[in-house]
Each structure stands twice: as C-alpha cells, then as structure tokens.
C-alpha cells in the first residue's frame, strides 16, 4: 500500500511530502525523504515490552505493573524531574504538563540543550521571523550562521531556501545569494557564495561589528574582528542592506558556544537593524521533530516554553536554575521521568550520572543510552510512525503527524494518562 503526503517526524523541517510503501504492517520503502527520514522509518527497532532493572539484571514486567510503579516513584518524590518531550506529539506533552502541575515537578524539554538560549534571547528582544514559505517565495539573500543544514536538516535548502523555486524567485539558486558563517568549512560552507570563517567564540563580536556598520559606525570597527576582515564585514553588510528579502538561519553554533543567548540576541538585533533598510527575518533551525511543539504546549499551559518548576504550586521559570542539566548537576532531583528523549547520551556525564542514582523511568519506543541508567523503561508508539498527533514545525506551523502502521504498542499519551489518573487518586489501570 502507498501512503502519500506522509510527515517525517525526525527533525524540525517536518517535511510532509514523503511517500511510504507499507506491506503487511511494515514500512518497506520511503520516497522523497532524506537519509535521516529513511532510517527513521526503516530501521525502527523497538523495545518489545516494559523492563525493570533488578539487583541481577533486567526483567520483563507488565504495562500495568510498570505504570503503577512509575506513579509510586513520582508520588514519593520531593523534587521529581520530567524531561524530554520533543520526539512525541502535543497530546502527550500536554498530559506531561498536567502531571508536573499535579505533583509539583520540574518539567523541561530538550530545547534546554538545543535552542534554549535562543528562547532566552527572544525573551529579551523578540523574534522577527516568518513561516518558511515566505523565505522560499521571496528571499534573495540567505545566511546560515553556525548551522550546518547539509548534515542536520538535509532538505532545508531544497524545500525552503537555497534550491527551492519560489514565486518571486523562480530561478531559485541563481537568484539567491547564500552566505555561510562558521568556524569550520562545513559541507554547507562549500556551497556558499560567500563563506565567512570566524574564530571560535567570535560570533558576538562579529554581530556587534555588523550592527555598528549597518548603523553607519564603521569607523569604529578595527581592521579584523574575530578573524574576519573589515572589508568582508562591510561587504556582507552591503549585501544584506541591498537584499529585497533576507533570511538568517542559525543553529547550535550560536546557542552552544560561549556567550550562549547573547550571541542570538545580537543576531536578532542585527536583523532588527536591517529591517530599517529592507526586509529581514531570522529563525533558529530547530532540531527534534516536535521540539517547537513542546515549547508551544508548555507556553499556553504554563506561560513558559521550557524549564518550568511547579514545586511551589505556581509555575516558576528560570533557566540556569530550573533547567534539567542544572538540576541534575546539583543532584537536586530525587526521581526522573524521561519521555521521548535520551539525556543519557545528550547530557554531560555528571548530569547523566545522577539519573542512575535516583529512580528513573523512561517512556520511549527505542532502547537508548538512558535505558541503561533507568529503573524502568516502558516502550510506546513512535509519533508519526504508529501514532498520530500534532507537531509544530520549526517556524511554528502545526502539522498533523500520521499513523502509518500499527505495531501494537500503546500510545505514550495513553500511558501518561494512566499515570496521571493514578496520581490524581484514580483507581488506575
């Protein structure tokens, strides 16, 4: 059977034009997708049943037992941490927030180690952005800064930017100037019309210099800024000012390097400045398929996009204090529920190690590094493969993930709902 217009849940591009061929409840062929999409759909090995770690090893347990024990762990905790949420749908995220609110937990999502700093920057200066179709149809200048879409978002350039045929840019690549700014010459840099190689940690200074140049203060700028010549900076500023529609896309090169959110703030303020000359937009290249959705759901329910602490009953937010890595590093939390993510692999060692010291429960379709650190792992459906639900694309466009096949697993929203009911005094499953 052929399924058309399938949405790939892997990265924040949420490409919705895939064609899947299924045969007897299995996906046998993926068309239109990138290699990440292909492996997402084709190499989908699951944990067969819930498992629990004992003194001697791992044992299989029933769903009911696993759910009951999870509820008990969470109920007994003085500072539970609920973390993850980015690779599942909004329906599960929403129940997660309700659990956190009910038990006084800290709930955080993976933006904390991804674009959390971008959010902090946006909270300082706002975000002049747009949906990706605006860029596709209009942009004649495209900047990738500290981002490597060739590796991380393989179809970004063909669907939305560089190579996409747009209404006002029918000749696509030939009508667009592409600028890449990075500390290393990546594959993305190799296709650029202008590559700006910047010294590590120099992004902030370069943004400041560009802002000053665009404001007419070029005379203050020294001959070289973070390894970039003043001539090149002036050239870039001119390209940007002459653009009809410019778009900056940035990645972890800005959020993870020193200065963190200050780099992004400066990028946004450059965009703001350029809007006084022409049209310019800026957008983060969001990683996990539905990480932006977790920010949206958290925001309408709690007021904050991530790192929400319900310990005092009200919602409190302060990244650096209420973020998952910090809470783990300080050894604060005494129980953890990890949903649809892998902090065991993605957090620095000291933070991950704390997960092994406390009762940690994983709800995730796949065995991952966190499995080894957990007490219980409950397998579930994978959103976009065997479960339908809402996901938000990196530009905020909500898209419905489809259920393509049935593999007999319970939906994570269903598992979470049962945990919630138990915690809320219900009789449970």
């Amino acid at each position, binding site marked *: 059977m052929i399924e058309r217009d399938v949405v790939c849940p892997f990265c924040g591009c949420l490409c919705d034009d895939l064609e899947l061929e299924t045969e007897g409840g299995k996906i046998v062929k993926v068309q239109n997708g990138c290699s990440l999409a292909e492996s997402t759909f084709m190499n989908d090995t699951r944990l067969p049943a819930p498992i629990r770690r004992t003194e001697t090893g791992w044992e299989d347990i029933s769903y009911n037992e696993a759910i009951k024990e999870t509820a008990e762990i969470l109920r007994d*905790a*003085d*500072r*539970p941490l609920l973390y993850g949420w980015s690779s599942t749908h909004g329906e599960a995220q929403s129940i997660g927030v309700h659990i956190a609110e009910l*038990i*006084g*937990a800290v709930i955080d999502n993976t933006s904390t180690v991804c674009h959390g700093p971008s959010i*902090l920057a946006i*909270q*300082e200066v706002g975000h002049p952005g747009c949906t990706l179709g605006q860029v596709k149809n209009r942009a004649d200048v495209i900047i990738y800064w500290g981002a490597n879409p060739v590796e991380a978002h393989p179809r970004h350039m063909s669907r939305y930017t560089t190579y996409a045929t747009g209404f006002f840019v029918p000749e696509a690549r030939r009508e667009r100037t592409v600028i890449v700014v990075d500390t290393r010459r990546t594959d993305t840099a190799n296709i650029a019309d202008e590559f700006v190689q910047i010294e590590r*940690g120099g992004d*902030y*200074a370069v*943004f*400041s*210099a560009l*802002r*000053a140049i665009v*404001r007419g*203060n070029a005379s*203050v*700028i*020294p001959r070289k*800024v973070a390894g970039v010549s003043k001539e090149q900076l002036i050239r870039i500023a001119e390209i940007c000012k002459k653009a009809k529609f410019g778009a900056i896309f940035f990645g972890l090169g800005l959020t993870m390097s*020193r*200065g963190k959110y*200050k780099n992004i*703030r*400066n990028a946004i*303020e450059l965009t703001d400045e350029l809007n006084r000359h022409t049209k310019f937009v800026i957008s983060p290249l969001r990683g996990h398929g539905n990480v932006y959705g977790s920010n949206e759901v958290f925001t309408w329910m709690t007021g904050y996009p991530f790192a929400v602490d*319900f*310990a*005092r009953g009200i919602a409190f*937010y*302060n*990244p*650096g*204090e209420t973020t998952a890595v910090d809470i783990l590093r*300080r*050894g*604060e939390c*005494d129980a953890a529920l990890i949903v649809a993510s892998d902090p065991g692999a993605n957090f620095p060692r000291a933070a991950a190690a704390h997960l092994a010291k406390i009762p940690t429960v994983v709800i995730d379709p796949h065995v991952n590094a966190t499995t080894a650190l957990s007490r219980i792992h409950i397998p579930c459906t994978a959103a976009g493969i065997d479960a339908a639900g809402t996901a938000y694309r990196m530009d905020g466009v909500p898209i419905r993930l489809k259920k393509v096949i049935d593999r007999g697993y319970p939906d994570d929203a269903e598992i979470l709902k049962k945990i919630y009911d138990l915690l809320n005094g219900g009789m449970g499953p």
Partner: protein
Amino acid sequence: MRVILESKVRSKPNLPIEAEAIIPRNFLKGTDHVVFEGNKERTLSELFWIFVEGTAVSPENIEVILKGDTSRIKRVGEYMDTGSIVIEGDIGMHCGNFMSGGTIEIRGNADAWLGREMRGGTILCRGNAGHYCATGYRGEKKGMQGGKVEVSGNTGDFCAEYLAGGTVHIHGSTGDFPGAEMRGGELIIEGDATRPCGNMKNGSCVILGTVHDMLPTFEKIERRVLPEWKITADVYKGDVANRGKGNLCVRSTGLY
C-alpha cells in the same frame, strides 16, 4: 534582637530550600514561618534550630544569623527592607532579591542571582558570587535599580547584566559579559573581565585589571586619570552597535 538559625541535618541535603520568609521584619511576629523543601511545605523549625536572643520593637533592630550548611537555601532576604542578615557560610541562589533596605553579609560564597532586581540596601559577599550577580529577571528591561552589592572575591558570568541603578563593586574578577545591557548605575571590577559591557546603553563601568576580548564596538574617546582609583584609564563610549551612551573605563596598559 538576634535570631540565630542553624540548619539541621537533612536526609536529602541536595534538595533546594526556598526561604523568602527569612527577613528580619518577619521575626517581629515570632519564628513560626513557612519554608519550602523541594515540593513540600515545612515549618522553619523543621529545618533549623532556632535561637532568639533579646527582643525588638522595630524591625531595624533585628539581626538574623544563619549558620551551618546554608548553601542550598534560596531567596533569603527577598523583599527585605530593613534590619540585617549575616550568613556565616555559603548561601543559595536569589539572596536579597528585590531588597530595598538593610544589610546582608555573606561570609562564604553566594550562589547565582545575588541581589537580583535589588532596589536599595547593601549586600556584602566576602567570598565569591555566582553567575548573574546583581542582575534582573528574564525578559525584564531593568536589573538592579539601586543599593550596593560588594563582592570581595570573584563573580561568575553576566555580572550586573541590565544594571539600571546603584553600585556593584567586585574586588576580584568577573567572568564573561559583565555589565551586558547596562542602562545605568556603576560597575567597578578591580580584577579582570571578559567582553565587558556588551550592548550597554548607559551607565559607567571601571575595570582596573585586564580586559579580555574587548568588543570591537566601543569608541575610544580619551585617556584620563581616575584619581579615586589612582590609575590612568582609556575611556570608551559605547556600545555603538546600538545608540549606546555608556562609559567604559579600562586601565591603560601603555605608558603615559
């Protein structure tokens, strides 16, 4: 009146405690106060041995002394308006939030957000202070607006971010981005600093030590003697990435 709070040994010592109730004024009405340990509500006496010496009729005569392991206690001195607090060891985050009067002395180190959104009064930290010393809250346009924060040791990153008024005096060094987004007030760093005053709009900053990675968007105006610091300084105006009218004075390294 002197109120001595000595922390009790806890079964989960890493759990944060939130204790905004610990301000001098509150002890006029006794010692029966609510604090929070993780997601549980506790009484002050569950977490502290409490000793009261003498009496007081007005809060300015109340001194609160914290002893023992106080490094995980947050919000001590929040909204404090008078009296004094002495912390013999280290103190947790958000000490002196929104403080408007009185004094806090920390004999050990202070964790992050010391004196956040402070309006008045004095905080003296004899050890080191963490990140975001004397700053504001996420999304707000103004950080500390008045009073004085003095740190004998070093601070972490983003010291005095969004400083809008008052004085921040760091005897040691600061980390990255001290004085970022400054709008007013005075920041003095006797030691070294990295990327000071990024995007400052107003206010003044003096750095007596070495500046690392000076930002390219500060315009050197003059070289001048600063008698109160007994140095010759290069005076910069900035940040010209915006319409910044701030002053940044950095000790001159060349001969004069």
